[in-house]
């Protein structure tokens, strides 16, 4: 059914279609409408999940972990400070291999207080062992939530699906909401290989030896590696069933592109417009939008970028003292695989400031004029003198 939905409500529909059995969450701007929509369905008796009211995001995640250990499908949603409060338990969740799906609505971290889109909250969780998807529109939000359950439950790792604050969470778009019966065929009930069972008592997550710990860490990493392939298979199956798939990367007009923009989330959908315009002018530009951030699809990126002559990266985040996180990750992936291609790291859109097609055109202009990979991120695209071009 085609509906006119905000990104938050699209994510809520995705969660509901996945038939979770336990939802524990705590409201926070700009995620609250997800929680409210689910509560509304709960009130109408159509949700089918147990909604848990908890006193904090920390408790929400603790509840999801415990529920998931009993073998039920669990969902939660949060943003910004809430995700930061969950941080400790995010490690527990992946370490205990529970396939929780979490929707995080990217919001800038305080202080000072700010409520707009920025990726620092979720990127700060890079090393917690969670898969991370960054989506570009409302339809992709719904589809990715459903895919995330299947991927997570296959590799037994939790997934964060990232929506951008307001650009996705509160903007309305036409969204195709799949038929429940088809989703049920795509996503069978969760059957974990082991679970809490009062008839067969076990204790979880106890103290282990040093070598046991090391072994579990390696296993978790191997599961992450598996997730690359699983995510691709699941996305392919989804495309076959529903006619929509996204890949781990979105490659846009890469054929014969000399200068390639690498970015993530809604800047990617804006970039399509800018690239179309530049192509009209005859400029050989294209884009790779990174959809899956963890595990990082290195091989796919190398393949996609092997013919590029210059790479520009736009990050809506900044790791202080280094650069944008996507840029850094990309360089790490390319190093000694594709040598000699300059990579220009731009940091734009912090605090939810707008990144328009004109900004993106400017990024291509600068990248085409520059030659060497700069040591610092480019945070000001207006002052060409400062850039030495």
């Amino acid at each position, binding site marked *: 059914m085609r509906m006119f939905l905000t990104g938050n409500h699209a994510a809520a529909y995705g969660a509901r279609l996945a038939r979770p059995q336990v939802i524990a969450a705590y409201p926070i701007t700009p995620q609250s409408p997800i929680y409210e929509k689910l509560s509304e369905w709960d009130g109408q008796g159509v949700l089918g999940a147990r909604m848990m009211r908890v006193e904090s995001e920390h408790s929400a995640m603790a509840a999801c972990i415990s529920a998931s250990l009993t073998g039920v499908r669990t969902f939660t949603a949060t943003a910004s400070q809430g995700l930061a409060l969950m941080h400790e338990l995010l490690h527990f969740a992946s*370490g*205990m*291999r529970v396939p929780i799906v979490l929707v995080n609505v990217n919001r800038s971290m305080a202080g000072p207080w700010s409520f707009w889109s920025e990726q620092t909250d979720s990127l700060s969780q890079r090393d917690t062992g969670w898969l991370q998807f960054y989506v570009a529109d409302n339809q992709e939000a719904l589809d990715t939530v459903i895919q995330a359950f299947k991927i997570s439950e*296959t*590799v*037994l790792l939790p997934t964060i699906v990232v929506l951008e604050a307001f650009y996705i969470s509160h903007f309305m778009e036409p969204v195709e909401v799949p038929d429940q019966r088809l989703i049920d065929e795509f996503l069978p009930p969760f059957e974990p*290989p*082991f679970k809490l069972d009062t008839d*067969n*008592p*076990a*204790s*979880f*997550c*106890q103290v*282990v030896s040093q070598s*046991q710990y090391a072994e*579990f860490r390696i*296993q978790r990493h*191997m*599961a992450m*590696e*598996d*997730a690359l*392939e*699983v995510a691709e*298979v699941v996305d392919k199956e989804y495309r076959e069933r529903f006619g929509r798939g996204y890949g781990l990367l979105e490659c846009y007009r890469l054929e014969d592109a000399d200068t390639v923009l690498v970015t993530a989330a809604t800047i990617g959908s804006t970039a399509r417009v800018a690239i179309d315009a530049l192509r009209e002018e005859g400029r050989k530009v294209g884009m790779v939008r990174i959809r899956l951030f963890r595990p990082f699809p290195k091989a796919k990126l190398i393949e996609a970028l092997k013919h590029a002559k210059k790479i520009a990266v736009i990050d809506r985040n900044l790791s202080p003292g280094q650069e944008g996180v996507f840029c850094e990750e990309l360089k790490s992936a390319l190093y000694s695989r594709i040598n000699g291609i300059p990579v220009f790291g731009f940091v734009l859109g912090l605090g939810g400031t707008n990144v328009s097609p004109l900004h993106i055109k400017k990024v291509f202009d600068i990248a085409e004029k520059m030659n060497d990979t700069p040591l610092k991120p480019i945070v000001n695209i207006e002052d060409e003198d400062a850039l030495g071009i």
Partner: protein
Amino acid sequence: MVPPNRAVLNKSEPLTAVSFDTSLIFKTGSQRAERPVFVNKVAPCSHACPIGIDIPAAFHRASRGDIDGALRIYLEENPLPGVCGRVCYHPCEAECNRGNFDESINTRSFERFLSDRGQVDIRTGAAVHSRREGIAIIGSGPAGLSAAYHLARSGYHITLFEAKSEPGGMLRYGIPSYRLPRPILDREIERIHSLGIQTRLGATVGKDLSFKELESFDAVFISIGLQSGTTLFETDSSEGDILTGLDFLADPQRWSLEDDTQKTLIIGGGNVAIDAARSLLRLRKGKGGNITVLVPESRDQMPALPEEVKEALEEGVAILNGWAPHRLHRGNGSPFSLDFCRAEVKRDEESGAVEIIRVGEEIRKYTADRIIVAIGQSMKSDNLPEGIEIRQGKIVTDPFGRTSLPKVFAGGDAIGGKAFVADAIASGKMGALSISCFIEGRDVETAFETHQIGNSQTFSFQHFIEGPQENPVDLKRVVSFDQINTLFFSRAARNNPDELEPEARKKTGEEVNCGVDPARMDEEISRCFRCGTCSDCEICLDFCPDISIMRDAQLGIYSFDADYCKGCGVCSVACPRGVIEMVGEPR
């Protein structure tokens, strides 16, 4: 699909740390510096109760629906719960910890509720007639009944001598039936008699039979009370126009006081004066226009129970405070003219002696057809055994009721002290302890101290009978309000009894207090903190992070698992009622 890396892993290995073995090898108890100790303690209500009833234990049983069990706990210490549940001055309520939270528990109504609704055969578990010794008890008021009851439960043969035609003493001849209906009193006395007590009514010892005739008894307990009303005026009252409150209350019908046109003056501020006024009001079918109570004390100082004063005022009894009788004249026309003067009263807290001081020169005159004097009671000492020491009109005893004569013990109003029913019952209990110890050759002081409740004047007779217990209550420690974890309680208003409307009750003479109905009593029972009494709430189990609190299913008591308890103290902090405390481990 099976993820590729997973395929190469050993499938029997779990993906995260899971143990199907026990973690009991980690004996975390070695980290402990303190250990929790579960000790039931005394609640402040029990400590304040002259009879030392284990009130919270009874509330606990009642909360489980065991009304009979709750009544049995009362009966372990108090033979007269139906009486005390109506007329007691309830010092328990004044000390109730819940009073610091919202309002004290309505303990008196609870006692009445149990006595009206519980069924207990007190002979069950009592060693009736298990001993050969016989004990004579003289006087069947609350002190005598209490001594008889506790001694009979201890196995002695009891003979109760009563000068009047019916047992009960002041309960029957002093307390009006609108406060204590006679069927209630009869039922309580019948329960005491069921312990195989011999009663000889209409037998005044020292007159109808001599003390010498009691020599075959192994001990004698004198509880004859204060039978005479103190007189005030040296007048010939043979005509009955001046009588004592006690004489009037003993048989209100007898004095031809029904005529409500006769101005009647009642002098005194104690319960007898108020009881006399209200009884007279009922005799006059609720017409109180010519009844006046003249009280030397101020309203706040009146020794009568405040609720009785309140009810008397509701019924329209006129009470004049701060006036004392000065001079009595035989008047013309009207039989009496009385001068009274402004007065203050000083009360010696220790001896209870009262001094009335005239203040200023103001004199008022009052005319009256009849005067009822209710200013005190005295003992008729002419029938007491020869040689017994008497001082200030009371039999002299030590704190354990031992008189100057061997084998002779005494209690109740006849030995002084507080004059309330509960105090008389306590005094009878003390006499029973003393007589038991005397016969069994035990030291009564040691026995009392062993079973003394806190630093009060009373002790637990049940502990005395039972000896060491499986789950002892530490009788020496009283739970204070700061030991109550009030987070586990929500505020709730006290449930007070219904009362008959003043207009109705003063005409009919029916019992004023209707008690608290069962639904509201259920609420009241759930309000009780049960200070110091483990109530199986198992909050300690819920909070223990080491699952180290263990319940003995048979005894229903709790202990901690020394192997695993880390001594964190969470159980002690969580315990709502001060049962669990932390004590240092020996180093």
